[in-house]
Each structure stands twice: as structure tokens, then as C-alpha cells.
């Protein structure tokens, strides 16, 4: 085995910082460059930092077509999700105590919802359909008189499936309910137009879009006005919604990354669409595989596949020169298989055997080809080792076997 760098196919987990972004960030750190505090109003160091922050804000706003004044900087999408959900719940708690979200949200949405439940809120967790999509009908049925917030992700991080946030937005706006969307996986992948979408709050992450880790943003709509209770206090930065000295270099990085995302969305997307088609075609040649999530309604940069009769962690160990993620319990701290795949109604064993491949800006055709070669080889070898595969070949229906679970 060569000592070359492993192949990175885990872009949905994080992306490398684009060199052009890293270069810009370096201009905002040292004494010889601009290190000022954007909140310093009395000297040029502060003015320059403020200017850089506002330019970055306009880049972010520009990508999603909103007013820069609607962008609030945060430490990442997790903080943005927390600020949106707890911020709305706490501000509008006298209006109602019901929140609607889904079972396939990121933990950054689920955990704040759980926290609010402990404080007397009532949360409905919607089931996805078989294809891993939350329909507006499902949202409609769950709406109650005391519903104050609906929080549904745009693109699911494990499956790549896309939720119809346009129609959910119509529904929530008609019913006077706030609508928050976690769009951490969307930027640079699909077009987002907040001038037409009836979304009230939207969370963004820099590091999923070739920006740095540790910075994100929350879109908070001005018209009609949305108010949130701050979760971090200490100076009233970001119009009182998020205190703390702005991390200029991080923000500049996010701005530049989002500016590039707008410029390169088309070419990025064309490239990964090609890889996706090729990968799909080849992986389908392997026996007993299942694509998780509606293939007709997903982004091409994420592909989630279950390899039946093989456990996901062993597959990842077999693919040791390839960086991918698994829904297997063995790769998670909780020892539970992916809650997203279980929510789709997939059997536990298929959840255990799932691998998420995600492509990105720096993926090459060689990466994809080498991965496919190794994949079919390792799958074959692991099945040779699998008593389940042997039983399957013997024509035994595994559902009828009495297992000794322990």
C-alpha cells in the first residue's frame, strides 16, 4: 500500500479551507496586517476590521439573496441553530409552547429542542417519508393553535435529500408560525433565494463550504420582523443578538468562501453531478446494495449506500485509505446505529451497513475510480467473511432466524 494521502470523500462532514480563503484570512491576524477589533470606533484599526466584517457580511447575504443587516455572525451552524430555536422559543413563549421539527434533523436542532422540552415546551418530531423527505403535508398535519416555530433542515447531512422549504414556508407564513431552516449543507450546492422563500431564520456554516471551522451565521428576517432572545450576553454586538468580539479573520474567511461559492456553484455542481452518476452506476453493479434517500430528490454531492450483510465499521476499516462516514453504531459514541436511517424505516442491520460518500471541489476522477475499485474488492472479501452472506446465498431468510441478541 502506498504512503500517499488517503482519498477524502467526506465533504459533508467538513471541507478543506480553499487556498484563496486561507490567504484572505491571513490578512486579518498579525501586527503587520489588520488585527483590529471591529467594535473599536475610535481608530483606523477598528474601522478597517469593521469594513472587512461588513464586506464579508455582504458576501454571505449575496449568496442567499437577503439584506446584509439580516445576517448575524455566530461560531457555527450549531450556535446559529441554538440561537434560532431557543431565541424564538424564549421570546415568544407567551404566544405558544409548541414546536415542530423532524426526526432527521441534525443534533444541533434536536438537542436544543430536547432542552426546551425540559423547560415546558412541547415538541413534535415529524417522521420522514420512505425517501427521507419531510413533506409540507406532514408539517400541516402537525400544526396546532399554539405552534410558534417550525424547524426543518434544507438538505439532510446523512442522505443529501432536499426538503421543500418553499412550500413549508408558505404554510408557516399563512399560519403565523416562524420557520427556521438549517441550511448548513446547502450553501454552494443549491440556489437559495431568501427574497422569495418564506423562511424567517436560516443557519449557515462556513466549514461545509470551503471556509474555516468556528464561524457561521444566522439569517434573521427583518420584514416581516422576527425577534429573538439573545443566548450570549456581553456587549450587545450583532444588534444585541449575539455578543462577543467578532472573529474578523474567521468572518473574512466565511465571506470569501461564500463569495467563491456563488461564483463556482455551477462548476462545482457540474463536476460532482458527473461523479455522482458514475459512482452510482458502478456501485449498483455490486449485489445487495441499497441507496438510502430518494435518489430523485437529493443533492449529488452526498450518496448514502447500505452494503447488506457487511457491518459499516469493518467496511471503513477495509477502505482504510479512503475517508468516509458510516451510520454504523460502531463508529458512533452512542453505540446506536444512525437515527436518520432508522427514521426512514430501514432495518437496523441496513443502518449498521451504511456508508456516506460525499464529493467536493477537490475530488478528482482518480479518487472516484480508485474508491470504486477498492470498494468492490473489500465488499467481496468482507462478504466472504460474513456468516449472513453465507446464509443469504444458502437461501435462508434472515428475518426468520432466531438470533441470540445480547
Amino acid at each position: 500500500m502506498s504512503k500517499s494521502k488517503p482519498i477524502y470523500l467526506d465533504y459533508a462532514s467538513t471541507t478543506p479551507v480553499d487556498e484563496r480563503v486561507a490567504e484572505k484570512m491571513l490578512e486579518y491576524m498579525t501586527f503587520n496586517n489588520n488585527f483590529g477589533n471591529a467594535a473599536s470606533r475610535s481608530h483606523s484599526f477598528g474601522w478597517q476590521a469593521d469594513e472587512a466584517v461588513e464586506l464579508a457580511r455582504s458576501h454571505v447575504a449575496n449568496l442567499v439573496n437577503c439584506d446584509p443587516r439580516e445576517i448575524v455572525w455566530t461560531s457555527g451552524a450549531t450556535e446559529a441553530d441554538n440561537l434560532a430555536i431557543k431565541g424564538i422559543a424564549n421570546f415568544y413563549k407567551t404566544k405558544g409552547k409548541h414546536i415542530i421539527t423532524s426526526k432527521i434533523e441534525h443534533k444541533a436542532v434536536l438537542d436544543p429542542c430536547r432542552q426546551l422540552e425540559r423547560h415546558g415546551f412541547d415538541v413534535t418530531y415529524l417522521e420522514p417519508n420512505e425517501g427521507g423527505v419531510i413533506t409540507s403535508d406532514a408539517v400541516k398535519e402537525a400544526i396546532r393553535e399554539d405552534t410558534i416555530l417550525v424547524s426543518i433542515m434544507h438538505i439532510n447531512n446523512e442522505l443529501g435529500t432536499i426538503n421543500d422549504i418553499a412550500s413549508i414556508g408558505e404554510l408557516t407564513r399563512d399560519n403565523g408560525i416562524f420557520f427556521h431552516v438549517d441550511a448548513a449543507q446547502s450553501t454552494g450546492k443549491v440556489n437559495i433565494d431568501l427574497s422569495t422563500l418564506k423562511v424567517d431564520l436560516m443557519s449557515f456554516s462556513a466549514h461545509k463550504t470551503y471556509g474555516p471551522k468556528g464561524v457561521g451565521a444566522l439569517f434573521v428576517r427583518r420584514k416581516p420582523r422576527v425577534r429573538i432572545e439573545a443566548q450570549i450576553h456581553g456587549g450587545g454586538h450583532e444588534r444585541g443578538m449575539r455578543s462577543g468580539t467578532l472573529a474578523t479573520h474567521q468572518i473574512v474567511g466565511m465571506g470569501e468562501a461564500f463569495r467563491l461559492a456563488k461564483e463556482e456553484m455551477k462548476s462545482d455542481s457540474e463536476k460532482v453531478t458527473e461523479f455522482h452518476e458514475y459512482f452510482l452506476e458502478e456501485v449498483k453493479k455490486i449485489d445487495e446494495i441499497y441507496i438510502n434517500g430518494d435518489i430523485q430528490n437529493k443533492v449529488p454531492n452526498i450518496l448514502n449506500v447500505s452494503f447488506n450483510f457487511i457491518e459499516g465499521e469493518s467496511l471503513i476499516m477495509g477502505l482504510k485509505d479512503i475517508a468516509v462516514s458510516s451510520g454504523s453504531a460502531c463508529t458512533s459514541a452512542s453505540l446506536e446505529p444512525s437515527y436518520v436511517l432508522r427514521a426512514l424505516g430501514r432495518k437496523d442491520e441496513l443502518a449498521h451497513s451504511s456508508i456516506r460518500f460525499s464529493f467536493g471541489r477537490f475530488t478528482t476522477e482518480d479518487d472516484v475510480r480508485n474508491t470504486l475499485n477498492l470498494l468492490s474488492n473489500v465488499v467481496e472479501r468482507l462478504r466472504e467473511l460474513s456468516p449472513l452472506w453465507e446464509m443469504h446465498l444458502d437461501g435462508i431468510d434472515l428475518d426468520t432466524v432466531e438470533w441470540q441478541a445480547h
Partner: protein
Amino acid sequence: MAYSKKVVDKFENTLKNPEKFNVGRFDPKDGDVGTGMVGAPACGDVMKLQIKCKQEGNQHIIEDVKFKTYGCGSAIASSAELVEMLIGKTLDEAKEIKNKDLAEVLELPPIKIHCSVLAEDSIKQAIEDYESKQ
């Protein structure tokens, strides 16, 4: 999850050279074969272990072993390690093998001790099956 080099090596070697590492099967109906299968697909691991024995005096000796394992890397490594420990042992000696022995040899992380327990259960069951046939 950081595995010891021993787990990684065992796993990779087994994958590369399954025959050498006793991957395979005997006919479970044979009188000199004992089969044990433990675990469940829904839990993420199933181990199947088969021993082939011969009688010498009043001792039964494990002549050969085959296994197949569905599970994480350490489950596969644990079964492969166990198989090597078993060959040439009498059934009484085999019964003495404990999960701790495997966990120590492979330096399993605490969260994976479960894999060695499964391996211990599989040998117990295989011996029971063999003894029921005698």
C-alpha cells in the same frame, strides 16, 4: 476510535488471506463438528465458529477450526485470534479460554470488550453442540 496495531493487523491479514486465517465452514451435520453462532444482525455482530475434533483416549482435541464473522473490525479480529488459540487444545482447555484473554492479547478498547465476550460465547456454544453429538 483508535484500535491497537494488533487489532488492525489481525483484521487486515484476515481480510487479505482468509484461508490462512481459518475463514470458511465445515458441514454442521458432521458428527465431529460443533457449531456455535451468537449475536444478531440488528446489533451489528454475528459470529459463527465451528470446531472439528478428534478423540484421543478419553480426550477430545480440537483439530481444526473455521469461522465467519459479521461485525466491526474488532469483532472480526477477536474471532480470528480466538481461532488461533483453539487449534490443538483439548475441549477442557478450550473451555478455560475467557474473553479477558482475548481482550488482553488484542488490547481491545473498553467499548469493544463486548466483541471478546461474543467470541467466548461462540466457543462455549460450539463445544456444547459438539458434546451433544457424542
